[in-house]
């Protein structure tokens, strides 16, 4: 048996994955080293295309790495794939595996039987999962009639059927409205707090989600882990920086390129509001230099509406490390 020497719930050693495309070789993961303790929710934060899903696919044995090693529950994901599969499950947001023509209960019955449960055992397990997640409202409805929020609860229920020790959640609230996302987050937190799942590895590009849920966070960009720590530890990385929110009349984001030429500016993000017709520029500065920034904005005929200094968020950490916002393409 190939056991991970340090017995982390998840461990990767110089893990890399390349894909060959028409444009050449694309490195999706580049020497990723992770150590995930048992009993926590571990967040993997990164923009689209950062390598989060590739990493989760390797850890869940669906994809082989090009080089390096990965262990889940102490088992090697390449050489002991079936042992890994016995202790994990994976739930991906925005996907709806199952059969639309069958009801939620029938779909769960299908997956339980695939795990080898008899019909009687499967029924009992579905009742347990139902009690935990709360599926009564749509247990007897066909999958193709469920709302996105219901689908995600169903997917989470499916992910718990085999009582996994380690659960991978790939963007679990993707496409959900605020209320449904909150419900899912609450459920995820409960799973670990009540010891139902030992360890959760969650990927997300929602800062608030990761900040709220995760005990430890790794930031991934272009296939590399660029920082790791608790929320506080990550925020401490920019404890000396100054952050301002500046509300202005709607503008074209490219027009703000001039901000990059100011020495003190580490980075900025722009959020447009379709309702108010305003934009919020969030600027991270290496030292207090707001008067110069305001002057520059005015000189470029940008109408400033409000300004206030803000506290550090994870988004600012990301901005400092990557030089752009997590949702900026």
């Amino acid at each position: 048996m190939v056991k991970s020497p340090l017995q982390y719930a998840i461990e990767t050693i110089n893990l890399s994955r390349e894909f060959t495309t028409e444009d050449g070789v694309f490195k999706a993961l580049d020497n990723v080293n992770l150590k995930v303790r048992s009993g926590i929710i571990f967040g993997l934060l990164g923009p689209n295309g950062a390598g989060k899903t590739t990493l989760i696919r390797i850890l869940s044995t669906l994809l082989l790495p090009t080089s390096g090693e990965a262990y889940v529950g102490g088992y090697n994901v390449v050489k002991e794939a079936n042992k890994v599969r016995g202790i994990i499950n994976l739930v991906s947001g925005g996907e709806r595996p199952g059969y639309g023509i069958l009801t939620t209960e029938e779909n769960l019955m299908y997956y339980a039987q695939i795990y080898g449960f008899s019909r009687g055992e499967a029924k009992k397990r579905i009742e347990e999962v139902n009690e935990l997640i709360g599926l009564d409202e749509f247990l007897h409805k066909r999958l193709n009639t469920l709302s996105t929020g219901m689908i995600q609860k169903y997917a989470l229920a499916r992910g718990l059927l085999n009582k996994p020790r380690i659960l991978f959640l790939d963007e679990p609230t993707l496409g959900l409205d605020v209320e449904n996302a909150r419900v899912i987050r609450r459920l995820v937190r409960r799973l670990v707090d009540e010891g139902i799942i030992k360890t959760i590895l969650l990927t997300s590009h929602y800062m608030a989600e990761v900040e709220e849920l995760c005990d430890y966070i790794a930031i991934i960009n272009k296939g590399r882990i660029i920082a790791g720590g608790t929320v506080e530890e990550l925020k401490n990385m920019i404890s000396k920086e100054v952050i301002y929110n500046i509300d202005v009349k709607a503008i074209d984001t490219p027009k703000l390129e001039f901000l990059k030429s100011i020495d003190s500016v580490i980075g900025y993000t722009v959020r447009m509001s379709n309702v108010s017709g305003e934009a919020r520029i969030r600027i991270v500065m290496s030292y207090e230099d707001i008067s110069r920034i305001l002057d520059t904005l005015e000189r470029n005929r940008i109408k400033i509406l409000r300004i206030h200094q803000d506290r550090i968020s994870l988004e600012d950490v990301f901005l400092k490390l990557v030089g752009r916002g997590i949702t900026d393409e």
Partner: protein
Amino acid sequence: MNRIARILRPAFARAYVRIFGGFREKSWLFWEVILPTIFMSSIIFAYENLDAPKIFIGFVVLGTIMMNFWYNVLWGMGSVLYWEKETGNLEVYILTGSPLPSLLLGMALGGMFNTSIRSLAMILIGIFVFNAEFTPAYLPYALIIFFLTLFALYSMGMAFASLHLIYGRKGIRLNEVMGEPISFLSGQYYPINIFPTFIQSIASLMPITIGLDGVRRALILGVGFESLWLHMTLLVVMVFILFPLGIYIMSKIVEKGRKDGRLILRWI
């Protein structure tokens, strides 16, 4: 849990989806049972108008039924496996650690059930509408040959289905290549002895040809074991070769899929 339960439970679960899911859309009876009998009927009408010997009606009925099962292998296993991948069901299945041949067995069993209903409709139409004549005395031999043929066909199906994982949508072309020419060579509507010996030899490499010939001999010509033992032996040999070969090809292709990333790649 024993090994057999680990193989059969997923298979029955998948067959349930196919059978009970399918029954929820009653229109399938029209598409999959009524419509296919129309084409079979047109061939029979053509033979009747040409004053062909009466046994040709039975030839057409049995030929169409056996080809139904072959098409079920091509479309019910290969193409469905491709769609399982596209919908994300395949990766969830792989995560369970259950053997992939169980999934295919489930698809095959489900498809077999539907195909059997269609075949039953065809036999009934053949007997009661066109007065097809069959000899029931050698039905047990016909059934042995039929089930051996199915086993061989579904073993081939495993290999074809896994090719769909590699070729994606192009796999549908593979179905077409493996559909019509095999229907032509195996003698769906006629005995293959109308072909030159060389072509007959090539056609005989396919289990469907051997099976179809054997079933026709038993049920139409009324011959027994003394004439059918060779068919049975050939089919047993084919099963012994094709079944392990199917499993081997499937495991290699799944491993290649994990390596290339094709198991998780959609819309290819």
